[in-house]
């Protein structure tokens, strides 16, 4: 029994077909697995490991290395604020502080209702449109505290709509 949806399993199969060795699919597979499950529980680790022919240990080694992969659930909307140099010069720290206050959580914490989690991240490649943050995979750039409020409000609405 798979822990993944049909679509994700199909995606895995496509991925596996892209490489001469199965193991090559491991990193993207883990990311897609996490996209679906919110994190990487032991069952997912086992299943992905079996698909690529890697031991559980090998999969855990890999997970530990990559900063986007996690063993604990994050919020439904994972807010990642860049405070690296270009953002910092344009108020990234303020944006981060603002998020902390608004969400009432700190670095790598998940809000009690599970809607948001927060992370201070390194440069996300939006330096010329700083300060920037990502919510899950969506970019939000040229931020001001007011803009952040609006963004968070939208996501909260989305969460409530479900």
């Amino acid at each position, binding site marked *: 029994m798979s822990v993944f949806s049909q679509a994700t399993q199909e995606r895995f199969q496509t991925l596996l077909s892209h490489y001469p060795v199965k193991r090559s699919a491991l990193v993207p597979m883990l990311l897609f697995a996490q996209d679906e499950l919110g994190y990487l529980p032991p069952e997912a680790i086992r299943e992905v490991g079996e698909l690529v022919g890697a*031991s559980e*240990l*090998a999969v855990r080694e890999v997970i*530990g*290395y990559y900063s986007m992969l996690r063993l604990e659930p994050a919020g439904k909307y994972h807010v990642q604020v860049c405070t690296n140099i270009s953002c910092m010069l344009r108020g990234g720290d303020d944006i981060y502080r603002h998020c902390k206050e608004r969400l009432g959580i700190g670095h790598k914490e998940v809000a009690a209702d599970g809607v948001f989690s927060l992370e201070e991240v390194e440069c996300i490649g939006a330096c010329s449109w700083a300060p920037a943050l990502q919510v899950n995979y969506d970019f939000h750039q040229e931020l001001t505290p007011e803009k952040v409020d609006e963004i968070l409000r939208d996501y909260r609405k989305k969460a409530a709509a479900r």
Partner: protein
Amino acid sequence: MADNPTLVNITVNGQQLTAPAGTLLLEACRSAHVEVPSFCYYPGLSLQAACRMCLVEIEKMPKLQTACTVVITEGMVVRTDTEQVHRARKSAIEFILTNHPLDCPVCDAGGECELQDMTFKYGAAESRFTEPKRHREEQQWSPIVYFDRPRCILCYRCVRVCGEGMDVWALGVGNRGVAASIIPNHSDHLQCEECGMCIDICPVGALTSGPYRYKTRPWEMKHVGAICTFCGDGCKTTLGIRNDQIIRGDNRDKSGINGDFLCVKGRYAFDFTQNPERLKQPLVRVDGELRPTTWSFALETVAKRFQRIKSAQGGFGVIGSTRTLNEEDYQLQKFARRVLGTNNIDHHRTADFPALATALAARTNTPGTALPLANSSSLKTAKAILLVGNDPTNQHPLLAWNIRTAYRNHKTRLYVLNSGDIKLRRQAFRMAVIPAGGEAAAIRFLNGEADSVPAELTMVGGPDPKRWPQTPPSVPQKIAEGLQDFRARLRQEQDVIIVFGAEVRGEAVRELVAFGDTLPGNTRYIALADNANSRGAADMGLYPDLLPGYRPVADAGARAHFEQLWGGTIPAEPGLNLPQMLAAAAAGKLDALYIAGANPLRLHPSAAEGLRKAFVVVQDMFLTETARQADVVLPVLCSYEKNGTLTNTCGEVQAQKRGGMFEGAKSDLAIIHELAELMGCGFGPAAEDKIFGEIRANVKGYDLSLVQLLAGRSALAAPLNETVAHRDDPELIQPNNDTLFTAGTLGRYSTTLNSVMERRLQKESK
């Protein structure tokens, strides 16, 4: 390796050096006694270049280079003694120490820590790091393995030795950057072979062993290089002794035939020596009950009874041990033949050494001819190895290690013929799966010309499905093709080492040797037997039909030789073998059974009743099944408490050195001598060296250099002679099928082995 490797000239610190092409700079320097410090470099394991301790200056290179990865090239000019190099070393140490707890006073590695030594030699007097250190709690990963992350310097030696060396791959690296950490294979615990290789190879005290933790400091122990008393491979284990007690086993000086290697038994199972059940006093049966008594009373009881039986021309049986020393075995059979006047002597056989000796009988060890026997380390450089039967990973951990080393370093082609899914299949160049019991037929096929594979080898579903989790090819056609290809490939090899287990016996051994003779080059053999001195017991003549050195009892010349040596006569008729003795006892045809260090009732439990009919004397450390049936039980010292020699399964003779002591027990040798004395047939003083002298002079193939043995090295005994005439008793060969965590009767008394097994069962049932 090529016979004449090209030599390369380099200059180190102005000094000219020459080393074979392909040598790493670090090795070249060290071979010329130029110091190059290192942490992550470890000979034989993959290169890491991670610790940056070995940085040196090389002319024409802009940056310092890691000597552990640079291969020397002609004309290379190197400096290891410049200001820049010294600064680099100092800073590497300083960096390592930033997150190191410096809890040396309570660290197990204190006093034998490479980081301590290097800090002393190359480090700064004080640390400039004043920031908070990262802290993490120590973790227990298994009954054996503990991990203390803050002490770890991330040299990855443990990861590599477990993976590349052990082929277990139980350790890895989690997280990254300063948070990186060694992690075990099951998120918070280890499921592994518990060999302790990772602990031994750890340069600091990050990995420590349950059995040794916080027991003592290294300088409070004396160290004795002993030979492991468990399997037949004969690893050297250096015993750490405090107050006559063994506190630790490891191989700190790597000088044994095992080099770096030790398995869980050699390293940790010595604790049987302190098992509370160990016998401290002789026991004599009084009113049907075994009661403690004095040594003099016990020995007199035995001697008198033996004397009486002898005078009455009663029957004796003698069963020897596979863990006692050569000197003891030799004297035991002498005692049987010369004092008790019987050839009823045997031991628990786990390999057919006589059959090998018979098969090789034509080949004497004349100087100049290549020896047809291989020693353990020759496996490491073999071109090709044929392994028939056995599961060396479990039963011969050192030989398995050597085979893996050969595969890793020399791409040795390993041919495995087995009915089980043994782990060495991962290193196999070709693996032929055969039904259990099909070894003889398979060998016949190998040695034959017929293309057709006999049906018994291709039986569908042959191999035991329990031993074969991933079902092997079960189509007869496939199996047949596999065997044909196996034979064809194998026939192209030369200088093959043939290693065979207990599955191959009697006629099959001779057939195997006949096949080996068809291979080009010098084919050599190793027969695999289970226990520490199984081979010695065989060589020393613990057989009803063979005298020491496989000389037939029936051979008048051989008899005459020993009669003259010992004085007196040796019965001309071969005696009873082990099961025959048990049967004879049950039938009331044996008056006395003298069992020195064996527990035949483990494999023959139904013989218990019968034993009570004879006068039974048992020498043992524990009240085993057999000892429980005895009339007299004499507590003995174990191998670690005696001096003498042992012969491993390949025939390598090594000196055993006394480490621990045990109050109340005597050596088997002392007991045999005292009994002989009491029976008026004195053997002289129980001096091992004198006895070994007799062995050297009188046992074929044992004319070995004493100096070499006493210096802690091994010598290959080759008891080959022209006149072996042995009767095949294949059914007498009963391997223990030990795992890494069992060792016949002895293993049951190791708390460590027991706790490992319990823990495994727990984890499995979860």
